[in-house]
C-alpha cells in the first residue's frame, strides 16, 4: 500500500484529547487560538499531492466512520458523492436529535472552527458548490455565535465554498439525513422513502454528502496530521477517538473524548464513576439498547463489539441506570416520547408505536395479569422494519433490549404489578414530558 500519511507533526505518544484539545471552559475557541493549536487549514489544490481525490484516499486510509450513529465509512460516502454527476452539496448535520447526547452542541458552541474546517475540506474533496450547516432552528444564540465565526473566516477567505447556516425543526426525526434533505428542498422535515439516497440524489437533485459535525471535525484533523496519526488511537478495526455523552447515575456527567474500543465501564469511570450501584447501561441512546451493568462493563465502545453484545454505538451515548430506578418505567417513558415523535407518515409507525407505548406503560405502571410481556413482544414484531426510516426499528430495539436486560423485573411487573422503584424521579431526559402529565 502506498504511503498516504501526511507529514505527522505531532508526537505519537500523547493521543488524547484530540478534538477537545484546548477547549476553553465556557468560551468559544477563536479562529486564532484554533489555528495556533492545530495549524492553519491545509490548502488543497486541483492536482498532484493536493488534489481532491487524494484527500478522500487519506480519509479512506484513516478508517474514519460516521459519528452521527450510522458508523458508515466516511471515505466511501465521500467517494460515492464525488463520483456523481457533479455540482455536489455538502450538509453538516449539527441538529442533534438525541435528547441524551450533547457532543455536537459542545463542538458547535466551543470548537466551531474544527467543524467549519471540516465542511470546507469535505466541500473541496467532493468538488461541492454549496455547503450547509444545519442546526436546530430554536438555537438563536448558537446561530449568532456561528455567524460570528463565519464572518471571522470570511475576512481571511478561508471557505471558498460559502457555508450557509440553516435552522431545522427540533423534532427527533427531523435530523435524519433524508429529512434534512427534504427540508432543504422546501418540504417537511420528515424522512423520505429511499432509494434514491441523498448521496445519489439529494438537495436540489444533486449528489449530497450529509455528515455529522463530529465526523467533519475529525476530518479537519486528519487533513492536517494524516491517516497514520489518526490510527494511533483506537482499535485497528475501529480507529480514532470519539466523543461520548455520559449521564445518569454518574458523579460527573458530561461529554468525554475516548479512544474507540475503550471498555464501557472505563467510560463510566471517566465520568467520575457510578454515583449509585449501577443496574444497567443504556448504550447508544434512544435507538440503542439496555445492557446489564455487569456484562456491559468490559464491552469495548465500538460499533462491532456493541452490536455483538446486543447494543449499538449510536452517537456515543452512555446512561447509567442505578439499582434504585426501574428500567421498564424508563423504557416506557422513552417509547412514549418516540411514539409522539413519529412523523405521521407510515401506518405501522403511526399506529404501532403508540400501541407499543401503551403496552409498555401498562407493563411498567399497572402490571399485566401475566399477558403484557407477550403483548409487548408481539407489537414489537409488528412494527419492526416497517417504516420508511429506522425510527420504528430503533424503538423496537430498545424495547427488546429492556425485556432482555430486565427479564426478571418484567415478569414481576407482569404478574404482580409495578415495583416500588417506578416512584423514583425520572432519569432519562425526555423532552416535553411535562405536557403529557400536566406536571
Amino acid at each position, binding site marked *: 500500500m502506498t504511503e498516504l500519511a501526511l507529514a505527522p507533526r505531532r508526537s505519537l505518544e500523547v493521543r488524547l484529547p484530540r478534538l477537545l484539545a484546548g477547549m476553553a471552559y465556557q468560551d468559544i475557541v477563536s479562529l486564532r487560538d484554533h489555528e495556533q493549536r492545530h495549524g492553519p487549514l491545509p490548502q488543497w489544490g486541483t492536482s498532484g499531492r493536493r488534489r481532491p481525490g487524494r484527500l478522500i484516499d487519506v480519509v479512506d486510509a484513516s478508517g474514519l466512520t460516521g459519528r452521527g450513529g450510522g458508523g458508515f465509512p466516511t471515505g466511501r460516502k465521500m467517494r460515492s458523492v464525488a463520483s456523481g454527476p457533479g455540482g455536489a452539496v455538502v450538509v453538516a448535520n449539527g441538529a442533534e436529535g438525541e435528547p441524551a447526547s450533547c457532543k455536537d452542541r459542545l463542538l458547535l458552541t466551543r470548537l466551531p472552527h474544527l467543524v467549519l474546517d471540516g465542511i470546507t475540506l469535505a466541500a473541496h474533496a467532493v468538488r461541492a458548490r454549496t455547503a450547509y450547516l444545519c442546526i436546530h432552528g430554536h438555537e438563536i444564540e448558537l446561530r449568532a455565535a456561528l455567524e460570528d465565526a463565519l464572518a471571522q473566516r470570511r475576512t481571511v477567505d478561508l471557505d471558498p465554498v460559502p457555508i450557509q447556516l440553516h435552522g431545522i425543526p427540533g423534532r427527533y426525526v427531523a435530523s435524519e439525513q433524508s429529512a434534512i434533505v427534504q427540508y432543504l428542498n422546501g418540504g417537511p422535515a420528515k424522512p423520505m422513502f429511499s432509494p434514491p439516497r441523498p448521496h445519489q440524489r439529494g438537495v436540489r437533485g444533486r449528489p449530497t454528502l450529509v455528515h455529522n459535525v463530529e465526523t467533519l471535525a475529525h476530518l479537519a484533523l486528519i487533513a492536517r496530521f494524516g491517516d497514520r496519526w489518526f490510527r494511533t488511537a483506537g482499535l485497528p478495526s475501529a480507529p480514532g477517538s470519539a466523543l461520548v455523552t455520559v449521564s445518569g447515575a454518574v458523579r460527573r456527567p458530561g461529554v468525554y473524548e475516548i479512544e474507540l474500543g475503550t471498555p464501557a465501564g472505563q467510560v463510566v469511570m471517566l465520568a467520575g464513576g457510578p454515583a449509585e450501584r449501577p443496574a444497567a447501561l443504556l448504550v447508544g441512546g434512544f435507538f440503542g439498547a439496555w445492557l446489564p451493568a455487569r456484562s456491559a462493563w468490559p464491552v469495548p465502545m465500538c460499533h462491532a463489539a456493541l452490536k455483538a453484545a446486543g447494543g449499538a454505538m449510536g452517537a456515543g451515548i452512555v446512561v447509567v441506570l442505578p439499582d434504585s430506578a426501574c428500567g421498564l418505567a424508563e423504557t416506557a417513558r422513552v417509547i412514549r416520547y418516540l411514539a409522539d415523535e413519529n412523523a405521521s407518515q407510515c*401506518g405501522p409507525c403511526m399506529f404501532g408505536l403508540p400501541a407499543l407505548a401503551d403496552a409498555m406503560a401498562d407493563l411498567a405502571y399497572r402490571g399485566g395479569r401475566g399477558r403484557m410481556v407477550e403483548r409487548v413482544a408481539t407489537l414489537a414484531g409488528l412494527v419492526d422494519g416497517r417504516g420508511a426510516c429506522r425510527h420504528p426499528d430503533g424503538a423496537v430495539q430498545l424495547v427488546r433490549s429492556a425485556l432482555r436486560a430486565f427479564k426478571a423485573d418484567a415478569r414481576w411487573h407482569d404478574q404482580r404489578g409495578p415495583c416500588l422503584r417506578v416512584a423514583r424521579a425520572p432519569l432519562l431526559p425526555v423532552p416535553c414530558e411535562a405536557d403529557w402529565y400536566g406536571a
Partner: protein
Amino acid sequence: MSYELRVNPIACDGHGLCAELLPEIIELDPWGYPILMSAEVPRGLVEHAKRAAAACPVLALTLDTYPERP
C-alpha cells in the same frame, strides 16, 4: 427475470386491496397495513402480483423486476 414486491410505507394508506388480490403473499396488520411474507414473487403468482400492484389506489405497491440471479 425475478420479481420483487416493495411497499412504499409513506404512500400506503392501508386500503388493503393488495391483500385481497394476493393473499398468498400479503396479509394485513391490525391497523390494515400490508405485511409482505416474502418480497420475492414465485413465478406462478406474478400475474396476480401485477394485478395487485396495479390495483393500489395510491401506487404504494410496486413490482420490481431484476435479472435472474445466478
